[in-house]
């Protein structure tokens, strides 16, 4: 079907940072942060019109520096955090800040997109997550499903838990934790667990995955050598509290049951280079998205370790009657973990992939050359999961 064709959007700059607008549950909206050393960096607000298959973009200027990480507030759709690099006197410093997007961007841009491109609006700085004392910020995490008042920033080897004031204009450090060990340990990424009352945080540093208790700010457990090489990204299964996915430079995606961290319960080796991002679908956690610097995006169907392990026994005939016949093979083996699809629309390394917060069957991926691709879960699979 035509609807399944990917939609491609090109940015002028190179980009690594991508997020779905978490607080927005109606419109399909993604935020992309660009990386340019010479020009003013931008945040692109990508609106996807599902019915007409059209992309609407809006550009906001992010003049502070090139964006390495972007996070959208779960409570206020206008509030975002970014981690950015800025250059002072031939020194490159990574900072983090909370921003507010102008509220009127939406209306203005819809009517005259050309004008807005020439005269983009600027983000309003709410507050710096000032952590120069602690080092370079790697990423900022919002409390999942929270009220938008708590964020965590990872800076070098420190975990900083911030409380934001009502207007988010002020941020104070409520507690910190420090990673201790040999050498210069740095966090590469982290994930705030939505389970256990949001009291756990998983971080990746070198080849280890550590999980912290935020109430005591102490390490609960550590999966040493989770990957053969650097761990690049993590994600918690949104529906099963003990399940965690990780990916890294050994080209593997591993799924862990944290109650037994000796061995991963599942390993995927589909990518031919480093895997930079792994994301569970928010509603149907058998769907896992992985992005890799082999320029590929892979959607896997991990039925056996999902919260719906037995799936739904679909009457195959019914399905194949009305639906695409080429998916028939998959529908005949309802319980198999398998790669659903490999997306090859990117020409450069894909550093980020995100599910839409509004439509669980839609996802976006961003490659370094600034290409954003929006794809859908294949229909046959969608109906099999639903029906």
């Amino acid at each position: 079907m035509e609807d399944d064709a990917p939609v491609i959007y090109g940015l002028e700059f190179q980009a690594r940072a991508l997020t779905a607008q978490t607080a927005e549950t109606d419109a399909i909206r993604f935020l992309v942060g660009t990386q340019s050393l010479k020009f003013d960096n931008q945040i692109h607000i990508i609106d996807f019109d599902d019915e007409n298959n059209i992309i609407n973009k809006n550009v906001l200027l992010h003049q502070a520096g090139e964006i390495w990480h972007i996070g959208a507030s779960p409570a206020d759709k206008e509030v975002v955090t970014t981690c950015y690099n800025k250059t002072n006197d031939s020194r490159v410093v990574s900072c983090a800040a909370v921003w507010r997007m102008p509220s009127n961007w939406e209306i203005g841009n819809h009517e005259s997109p050309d004008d807005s491109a020439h005269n983009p609006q600027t983000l309003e700085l709410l507050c710096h997550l000032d952590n120069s004392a602690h080092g370079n910020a790697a990423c900022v995490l919002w409390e999942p499903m929270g009220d938008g008042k708590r964020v965590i920033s990872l800076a070098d080897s420190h975990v900083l838990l911030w409380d934001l004031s009502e207007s988010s204009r002020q941020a104070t450090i409520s507690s910190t934790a420090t990673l201790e060990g040999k050498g210069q340990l740095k966090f590469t990424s982290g994930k705030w667990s939505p389970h256990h009352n949001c009291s756990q945080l998983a971080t990746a540093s070198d080849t280890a995955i550590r999980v912290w208790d935020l109430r005591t700010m102490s390490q609960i457990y550590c999966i040493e050598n989770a990957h053969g090489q650097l761990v690049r990204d993590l994600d918690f299964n949104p529906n099963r509290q003990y399940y965690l996915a990780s990916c890294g430079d050994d080209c593997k995606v591993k799924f862990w049951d944290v109650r037994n961290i000796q061995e991963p319960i599942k390993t995927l080796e589909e990518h031919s280079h480093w895997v930079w991002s792994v994301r569970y679908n928010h509603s149907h956690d058998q769907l896992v998205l992985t992005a890799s610097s082999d320029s590929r995006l892979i959607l896997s169907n991990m039925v056996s370790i999902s919260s719906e392990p037995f799936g739904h026994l679909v009457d195959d005939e019914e399905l194949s009657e009305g639906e695409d016949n080429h998916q028939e093979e998959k529908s005949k083996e309802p319980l198999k973990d398998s790669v659903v699809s490999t997306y090859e629309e990117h020409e450069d390394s894909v550093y980020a992939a995100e599910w839409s917060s509004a439509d669980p069957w839609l996802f976006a991926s961003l490659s370094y050359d600034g290409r954003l691709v929006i794809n859908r879960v294949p229909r046959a699979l969608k109906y099999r999961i639903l029906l």
Partner: protein
Amino acid sequence: MDAIEADDPAASSEDPARRRRVHGMLKLYYGLNEEGKAGETPESLDPCDINGPHFDPEHYLNKLRRECTLSELMDQETCMVKQIRSLDSDMQTLVYENYNKFISATDTIRKMKNDFKKMEDEMDCLSANMAAITDFSACISGTLEDQHAQITKLSGVHTLLRKLQFLFELPARLNKCLELQAYAQAVSSHRRARCVLKQYSHLPSFKGIQDDCLTIMEKLAQELRLKFRDGGSSAKDLSECVELLLQLDEPAEELCEKYLNHARSRLEVDLQGLEAEIRPSPTASAAKDAAVRRPSPNSAAVSPADAVPKMRSLPSPTVNTDILEFIDRGCNEFVSSLCLVIASYQQLFINHAQTGELASKNIHQMANSKLHTFVDDLAVRYFSLVERRIQEEKGVADNSLLVRALDRFHRRLQAVAKLMPGSSVPNQGTEIVIRAANERVKQYLAALQSFYMDSLTDVRQALATPRLSMAGQGVGGHLGGPASSRDAPSSLPELLSSLSASILNQIKSVLASVHLFTAKDITFSNKPYFKGEFCCQGVRESLVVSFIKFVCQSSRQFCESAGDKGGSTPPSLLLLLSRLCLDYETSTISYILTLTDEQFLAQHHSPVTAVTALCAEAREAAQKLLNHYVKVQGLIISQMLRKSVETRDWVNTIEPRNVRAVMKRVVEDTTSIDVQVGLLYEEGVRKAHSSDSSKRTFSVYSSSRQQARYAASYTPSAPMDTNLLSNIHKLFSERIDIFSSVEFNKVSVMTGIIKISLKTFLECVRLRTFGRYGLQQIQVDCHYLQMYLWRFVSDENLVHFLLDEIVGSSAHRCLDPAPMEQSVIEVICERG
């Protein structure tokens, strides 16, 4: 002459015919068949032949007249007249001779007529005499009849009296026999009298005799039983006892039982002897049991408590009897006495019962079934002992001993089979042999596996030693290449060949050992199991195929277990194993299997693993190992590159004057890897490249085009063109799979390693920010890599492309992108 013939045509026509007849008769008479003219057969059809049957005088005459001259005619005529005359005289002589004979015959007939008349008279006289004799004879027999009847009656009375006498004397006789221990005679006497006594037992006198006899016989039976029960008596005595008892109507069942019990106690002694040879496995209680049961006079006297230590101390010296001795002992003692027992039992109870008057189906069947349970029971115990002993045979050093022992074991059981055709014992024995053979095959597999692992450990050590020294030199600043090429060549291919040769030898020797099981002179080798299933399932599948699978399996494990950190397995071992597996795929597997099939003449009834499947498995293992090798080596180099990019402050670096040391190290390491791989793998094909490849500059980022590209990316008017050039480039070049499968050749392996390294370099560069000199340093480094790395890869464009990407990306990540002049870069690189 003419006139005569003309006058008497009849005479002349008759004459030749008559003459011919006479001539023929004469010839017959004198037997002159061959003397006649041979040339003229009598049947000649010529009418001119004077002696032929078709002679035509007219014709003849005409012919003569036509053909002959006058003088010739005259000669002819005289000749003919002469012949006619001689014939006439012959005839006359004949007539005279026959007349004389006729006259003498007539005389003889007349004389005979007179003689016959006289003979008739004499015959009449003879018949009258015979009638008189008959009359006399009848008269004599009539007078003698009375006396004859009397004599017959008298002789009957005599025999009866003798019988009676025998009966009256019987008790005394029996007593005497009993005294003399002539039991057989007693029994036969009694048997003779028994019926009579029984019949006339209503008469008091006979009753008395019978009672006497019975008590005596009872006593006798008692005595026999005693003798039977007493173990000391010889087999012959024993069988005699049994025979007599049977004749005495002793219940056969009880006898069988007793007999067998008796035999059992003797056989148990043998079994215990065997058990004692098996070392400590008999538990204390078993030993106690054995001691209690042991019926030999010695141990019967010893109390069980005493017996235990004795039993314990007993096995220790005999621990080391080898299996052959053990089986020998078992055969000689147990099996042979078992056979004896069976034979004598059958003689006594089965064959005898069949012939004797005791023959009744019941006894026969009962005896047979008893024997079977007895034999089965003992055989089970014997077998369990044998099996225990066989299980103790763990060492695989000398298989021939085991095979010989099994052969002997099996062979001796055939005797039992012959004696007892329906018995399950030989089958059970065969099963034990089969189990032992299977066990042995398993042990060989384990031995092969551990041999393989040991060899690998050796190889690993051999690899570790030279490598250490090499690494030391490398650190010391020498060029790694020559050092490694000096050390490695002596080791890698040699190690490979010695490894594969030793494995092959081991397999061969194991096959040879296993082959003993199917040798022609081994009795069980012609069992269907050993002909078919053992060869194909046992040897081929569970030994050879399993081993090959194990090799592949363990190779794969090297990839998996070592996978994460890449540390535990030395890369050269991976390379070596990969080559080993590849060799297996190409030749070794089919060689081994052919060898096996030839040696074992396996007819594959059941489906067996195909050579191709094994080859595929080996190839897969080889592929996996080689991929892993590439990955490990790639990661080692990647790690160097990554550290070098991550740890440097690229914004505040100084103007490049040299190629960074790490790049030199990368090239050195790549060179030594190249040498290492070259030792085991062929060169492989590479795409044609221009002759001045090393001098080639990067087209994309050199001079004007490079400027254009950068200009484009920084021109706000055309923001979408940022990566146009690079994107177009990518569109037309194939997607590069970094950690992809490699082919089995050097170039492909090197390409894989370089791809991994450069891609890492690229990704690391993208995470950094560069100053002007940082970019220039990258330019220099990349040019240096370009100068050296192209020669290793199959497609130099790949190296160009990745290096382009690196420089391009670092230009993007540069705060002040001012690229270095190409000429300067070249100068720096050439300086080293």
